[in-house]
Every structure is written in C-alpha cells, then in structure tokens.
C-alpha cells in the first residue's frame, strides 16, 4: 500500500458525518437573506459566522463576474486550505501540489459554483478532500490493489472540532507573518527550511544562543497571541 493512502487512512479518512456537523449548522445559520444583513452591518446581533458568510458571498459573486477578483478569496482561504491539506498528506511537496490543485480547480469551477449558504471554504475543502484521494490514487496507479482504493470521492462533512483545528492552524500560519522580522526569519529557517541552529546563527551573524532565544520568543509570541486572540 502506498504511503499517501496510508496517511489518508491514519488520518481517519475524510468522512465526517453526523447531525452536529459544521456544515449543517453553518447552513442553518446563513439561511436567512445574507446580503441584506451585510448591508446593515454586523452590530445587530448577527452571528460572526453568518456575517462572514454574507461577506464571502459578495466576494464569490465578484469573482464570478471577474476572475481577477478570485485573489481576495485566495487571500482569505489559503491558510485554511493549506492547513487542511498539510495535515492529511505526508510531505510538503504533496501539500503544495494538492493546495495548488485546489485553488486552480476552485478558480476554474467558480462559474458553476452556486451559493446555497454553504461557506465557500467548505466547498474548497471538499475539492481538497477529493484532490487528496485523487493524489493517492495516482500514486498507487501502477498495479493498484483494489482494496487500497476508495471506490469514489468521499463526502466531506467536517465536525466542528475538526474545523476548529483547521482554524487554529490557519490563524497561527497568518500570525507568523506578523512577527518581528528576525523572529519570523528564524521560524522559517528552523521549521520550514529545517536548518540547524548553527547554520541559522551563521546566516544571521548571531550566536547559537541568541538564535535559540529568538526561537523561544517567536514561539512564545505566537502562543500568547493564539491564547489572547480567541477565548
């Protein structure tokens, strides 16, 4: 069995169903006329999620009229999609391939997307779930063993807890961009490039001890903001 399929399975697959699912609840939350709410603003007791849905609808419709407007949706959801994909595939290259595929398909499929109150991100994550399965199938395409392959693309219906985990990671990814420059650089070199402390110290012209301090401060900063930002 190929590695990608294994990781897919270890992750429990991508089927999450149940009455308490995020999507079902989100649909209920946004069933009332969303656009009118946006026009009146969010200080009328409208839930944050519904407001986001409404704002998003405007963005989606703009992008349907002019594909160049897709950029706003990309900016809004890149981290979420990447966080979702990265947690389900084995390596960075695959995460990048699949994320890239999701947004290209999202852009290409936008004209056929119909707003039914389902958050746009759920649509993207559904594409992502299918893309991950496709990727695993392609990986196993030579001499596939039938029991390794899901029969068809799995439905995606995320539990609220799963969605919270994606939000948490996406938020953390975004906060890295707001770190002081040198802390940010240490984070990328250490966690993304996976360079050694010694190497980073040489590149930054600092002592290894100073780099470790920067690493600590960066991680502490991120932790504080994650805890402070959301109760």
């Amino acid at each position, binding site marked *: 069995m*190929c*590695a*990608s399929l294994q990781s897919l399975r270890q992750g429990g697959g991508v089927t999450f169903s149940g009455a308490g699912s995020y999507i079902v609840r989100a649909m209920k939350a946004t069933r009332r006329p969303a656009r009118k709410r946006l026009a009146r603003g969010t200080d009328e007791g409208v839930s944050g999620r519904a407001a986001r849905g409404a704002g998003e609808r405007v963005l989606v419709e703009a992008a349907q009229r002019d*594909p*160049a407007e*897709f*950029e706003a949706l*990309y*900016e809004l959801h*890149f*981290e979420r999609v*990447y*966080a979702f994909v*990265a*947690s389900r595939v*084995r*390596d*960075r*290259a695959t*995460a*990048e*391939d699949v*994320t*890239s*595929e999701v*947004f*290209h*398909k999202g*852009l*290409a499929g936008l004209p056929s997307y119909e707003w039914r109150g389902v958050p746009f991100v759920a649509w993207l994550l559904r594409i992502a779930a299918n893309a991950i399965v*496709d*990727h695993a*199938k*392609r*990986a*196993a*395409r*030579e*001499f*596939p063993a039938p029991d390794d392959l899901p029969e068809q693309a799995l439905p995606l219906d995320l539990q609220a807890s799963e969605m919270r985990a994606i939000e*948490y*990671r996406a938020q*953390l*990814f975004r906060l*890295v961009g707001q770190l002081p420059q040198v802390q940010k650089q240490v*984070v*990328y070199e*250490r*966690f993304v490039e*996976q360079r050694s*402390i010694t190497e980073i110290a040489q590149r930054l012209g600092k002592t290894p*001890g100073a780099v*470790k*301090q920067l*690493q*600590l401060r960066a*991680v502490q900063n*991120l*932790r504080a903001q*994650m805890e402070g930002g959301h109760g």
Partner: protein
Amino acid sequence: MVKRSLALQLDEVVQAMLVSLQPRPEKSPDRELAALMRVGQVLRELPREEFRVALKNNLQRRASMSESTATSKVATGETEAREVHYLRPGLTSITPYVIVRPAAQFIEFLKSAFAGVERMRMPAPDGSVMHAEVAVGNGAIEVSDGNEEYPTAPGAIHLYVDDPDATYARTLQGGATSFYAPTDDHPSGDRWGAVKDLFGNHWYIAKPRGWTPGPEGLRSVQPYLHLREAHKMIPFLEAAFGAEAMGVHKSPQGTVAHATIRIGNATLEIDEAHGEFQPMPCHLHVYVPDTDAAYARALQAGATSIEAPRNAPYGDRAAGVKDAFGNSWFIATYLGR
C-alpha cells in the same frame, strides 16, 4: 537564567521533532514547554512564503487569460508554483543524461521518432557534442558524446505519448528493433510497447489507460532503471533526495516488480532486472533544493563521490555521486533567478 534554560529545552524538543519522521508527542512534564511545543508542531507545517506567492501569481495569470486556453495552462501554472526556486527553467526534477555515440545522430533520432526539439548544443573542440538538451513532450533528455571520464551509457526511458502505435512505428523507421509492439495487455494497464534503438537505449512507449493524469500533467519522460536487488534503491533515493516511493508492487518472491518513485515534480521507475531488461547503469540529472545537503546524504546512504559540490559556470550548484548500482547522479540546484 530560567528563561535561558527554557530556550535550550525548547530547542531540544524542536530538534527531536524535526529529525523524527513522524511528529512525536512529547511527554514533557513542563506544562509551558508542552504548550510551546504544540505551537512548534503546527509550525512544522507552515507553508513556504515563496509557494504562497507563486501560487497567487499563477492564479492571477490564469485568471487574466482567456477562457479558451483552459486546461493545458492549468498544468503549466500548477507546476510553476513549485518549480520557481531551484529548478533550471525547462528541466524537471529528473532528466536522463544519455551518453551515446555519435550523439549528433542520436539527437536526429530523438527528433524523428519523438518529435524532439533541440534546445541547446555545445560542441567540443573536436566537433563532437559536449552537451545538448532535447525537449521531448513536456520533459527533456540531455545528450553527450561523453569522453574518457564519462564513457557511453545508454539507458531505459519510459515515454508517455499521445499515439504509442505511431511513435513505435517511427522508432522502427529510425532503426530501432522491437521487443514487442504496443499492447493493451501490459501489466501496468497502459497501452505499452518496447524497442531498443541503434545506440542501445531502451524505449518504453506508452499511453495511459484507465487513469487520468493529475493537474500537474503527465510527465513525458521517465527514466526506467532495471536493477539487481531493486528494493535497495528505494531507501537510497528516499535518504539522498527525499524521494517518495509511490505504488511499490512486489512479486510473491518479494522482489520489486515495479515501483514509481517521485523526486520533486518528476518520477522515475524501477524494477528487478529480468530477461532482456538487465541493469544498464546510466546517468541522471536531478534538481534538488539543496545540492550540498543531498550530496552529503547520498554519501551517507552509500554512494561514492564523483564530484564534490561546486558552483558550476552555467549557474548551478552542482555535484556528482555514483550509487551502489553504478548509476551516476548529477545533483544540481539552479542558482540563477
């Protein structure tokens, strides 16, 4: 001082996390350290900034293009997102480097049989081909007459083409001899034929059947290595190049009947040598994000050095190693931007 020691402790667990293949749940008695590590574990999956920007640019380019150019452009944009930073433009992560004589004649064969397009040719002082690059489909084949240091080394190459029957026929016109004509009965399920050209190279000419290539498109050119104890190649490639073994199919005896191995954005295939398909130690050109690191890892994994990393005059960080099977790997990182 307390803070300083926390910095050291954090780095120890970060280091342990980065070197282990699977994220290890740290059973730290220190609650603060544990909380920091939860952040650290998410950071490990932090997307590359370059990727985020490259994908955005590709999407913008795609959005601004007319709708009629749809699918093929998706494939191009797709791969560019990852290719930007270390691949030489025009080459994928793996390119076969075929040393045969006379190389000029071989280039003509690539043109006539596979609609190859000669992109570059550097003659040696004696008029032979020192180095040439021929695009075939969406991949490329590098060609040279070689010299004493690099003697001729034909190889086996798996080509994906639109019309395997016509391509097969053209190889025969170009002097190739047939192993077998394209058939639908190949174990891969693809339509698949096989020939040997006048220079000793094997060509496996195929078209996908029953599966759809991914959005990154189909790689036209895939080196195919027949090996003795082929299973030992997989850990070597994983260790040296961060390769990913995809769809490893083993025979009942435990030998590798077929495996596809991905490095970066390209794939190669291996199997256990059998019948007419015996080992043909060959040369391969691989682009990696960090030549020095890949070179060091390759040596650790049992390769011997051909050439230590150096900045090559054509703008690559380049090195060379020979694996335990006798194949040469020219490792490179594109430095020009």
